[in-house]
């Protein structure tokens, strides 16, 4: 046992300096900060069709004919965000006659399986266009490259390390998310206020960038960060952690890198008999409702699920030979604030529904999303 620990320790020390990956990139930070302010192009009120930055790619040359088959290699539907997104996607398909067939394969959160899935689709499916939502960036790059050789590829959510896809669709990004929440806290509190940062998991790129951006802004504003804890996205653990912090001292604000456990964190304050401080959550219905019911001082940055619609729209445009924003299609990433909170709260929707879905006008809303 001792040997193992020593070996692991030695290994670790050799690793740490090399592989503290850079999730704190000032350039990217500044870029996303600008993009949050930028006026998006495209139809107003339909953010899933809007884009920031004006580059377009022509797809007529790809020579596809409608109707065509679209294949979708999905990293997974293993969390509510992806469930809402996938529902958006399925509903959006109904708007596109040019997509005759839609084949969905689900990798259940495994890189290895997703690579195999893409190979399967290439070997046997009659795919004309492929949409990929990669499980992780680096691992899926070779598979996506192979897919690119065979057909046009649309990538969304996480990217890949290649520019071969027709377009990579994503909202502004993790820095933007972190910035919105942290700036809200600094605008509400004075220097030296106690801020607790709650994080889901280490190592996930989109979450790490949220954290680094949030931390940078809080530190620059002179906030006292009392702790940064991982919750594993587990409500019970979140509640326990917050309770433990409350036993040790007061908290003026809670910043979270994802909103899944926001309500549990709020309940920790309630159950321990404390006032609810300034809160950064996300656009999940349970948080929005709590916010509205309790009159919180809060903000809900979003990582909009409407990008799943956009992926289908992009595929349809490829088939129809229409131009689309690319090679990057940057979608706007609005935050829900006090002023527009009422627009997003909908008691008919399930607690884990992501309100920034851009789906309210779709045909089967709200039933398809589990609402009444």
């Amino acid at each position, binding site marked *: 046992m001792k040997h193992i620990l020593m070996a692991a320790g030695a290994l670790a020390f050799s*690793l740490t300096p090399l592989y503290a*990956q850079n999730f704190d990139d000032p350039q990217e930070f500044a870029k996303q900060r600008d993009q949050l302010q930028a006026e998006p192009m495209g139809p107003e009120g339909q953010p899933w069709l809007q884009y920031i930055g004006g580059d377009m790619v022509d797809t007529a040359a790809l020579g596809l004919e409608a109707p065509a088959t679209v294949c979708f290699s999905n990293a997974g539907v293993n969390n509510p965000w992806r469930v809402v997104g996938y529902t958006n996607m399925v509903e959006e398909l109904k708007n596109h006659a040019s997509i005759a067939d839609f*084949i969905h394969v689900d990798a*259940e959160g495994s890189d290895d399986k997703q690579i195999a899935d893409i190979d399967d689709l290439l070997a*046997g499916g009659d795919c004309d266009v492929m949409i990929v939502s990669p499980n*992780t960036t*680096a691992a899926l790059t070779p598979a996506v490259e192979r897919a690119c050789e065979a057909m046009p590829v649309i990538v969304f959510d996480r990217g890949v390390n290649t520019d071969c896809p027709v377009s990579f669709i994503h909202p502004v990004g993790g820095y933007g998310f972190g910035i919105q929440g942290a700036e809200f806290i600094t605008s509400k509190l004075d220097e030296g206020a106690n801020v607790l940062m709650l994080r889901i998991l280490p190592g996930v790129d989109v979450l790490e960038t949220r954290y680094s951006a949030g931390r940078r802004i809080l530190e620059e504003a002179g906030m006292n960060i009392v702790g940064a804890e991982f919750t594993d996205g587990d409500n019970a653990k979140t509640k326990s952690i917050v309770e433990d912090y409350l036993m040790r001292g007061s908290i003026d604000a809670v910043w979270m890198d994802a909103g899944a456990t926001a309500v549990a964190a709020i309940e920790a304050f309630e159950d321990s008999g404390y006032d609810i401080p300034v809160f950064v959550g996300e656009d999940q219905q349970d948080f929005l409702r709590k916010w509205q019911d309790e009159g919180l001082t809060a903000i809900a940055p979003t990582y909009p699920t409407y990008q799943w619609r956009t992926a289908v729209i992009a595929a349809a445009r490829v088939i129809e030979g229409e131009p689309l924003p690319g090679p990057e299609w940057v979608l706007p990433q609005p935050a829900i604030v006090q002023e527009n909170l009422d627009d997003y709260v909908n008691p008919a929707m399930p607690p884990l529904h992501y309100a920034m879905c851009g789906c309210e006008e779709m045909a089967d809303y709200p039933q398809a999303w589990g609402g009444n």
Partner: protein
Amino acid sequence: MSIAEDTPRRKAGFRFERWAPLILLGGALAIYVVVALVTGQAQYLTFDNLIAILGRSIALGITAIGQTFVILVASIDLSVASLISATAVLASVVMDGSPAMILPAILAAIALGGLVGLTNGLVVSGLKVNPLIATLGMSLIIQGCLSAFVSNFAGEVPAAFQMFAYGELGPFPVALLFLGLLAVMAWAVLRFTKFGSDIYAVGGNEEAARFAGIKTGRVVILSHVICSICASIAGLYLASRLRSGAPWIGSDGVYDLESIAVVVIGGTVLAGGRGGVWGTMAGMLIFSLIDSVFNIAGVDSFAKQVLRGIIIVAAVAFYAIRSKRIVA
């Protein structure tokens, strides 16, 4: 005298257990063909597709070959998933894109596997800790050490090393040939070496093995070392396939429980002493076929899980229901 002693064993001309994995595999294949035909997707019945199916679960197959060894000696290894992550990360960090470091990285990964296997074996055979607990504890320790220092994809494997996962020799992927070779080697070890014979003896009746002069502790330890080294190789394969290693790839693939399920579906009994590596390969193929059937039939991923759980139990019941032994 015990019940067994006084009851003459009935002679069985047809040994069901030997053929059961093939029957199951045949069944899975038939279902695959039928589903492909019924859904009008005959394009899935080509040679290329067969190869793609065979190549679906290489990492699982490599791990399961190792798991076969420990299960045959009536042990079990739950630490393979975290070991896969650890070796994948170790290899990709040591290589760090440099082709010159491929060999040292492979050696380092295998050494780590050997060390973990040795420790597992010592704890199981020396301290007499139940193997389930010993390897579960080991799994937590490895995962903890790993994620203490690495939290994302770390390092990068050079293009040359990606040959392992992506290279092709004629129509066959290199990794598939490697898996075949590994299976043949494992079969040869079990069939032709004294060590292989000892494994069956220790798993079948430890006391009898000890009386025959077999150093049972050594056999258990060596089996664990083989199992862990196989897991390291699976880790190397995944590093090659994913271009890098991350601390979650083993647990995301559920290689611990799935490798056990594959071995058991292949007819190796958890109590040890019976089974073999070809059954395990059949089990792996059954898993791959089921996955492919789900994909071509477009089964919803949640329903897929439900079915998978039922299939595992049903497959094991297929063997076990005939035994009269009380199990717990």
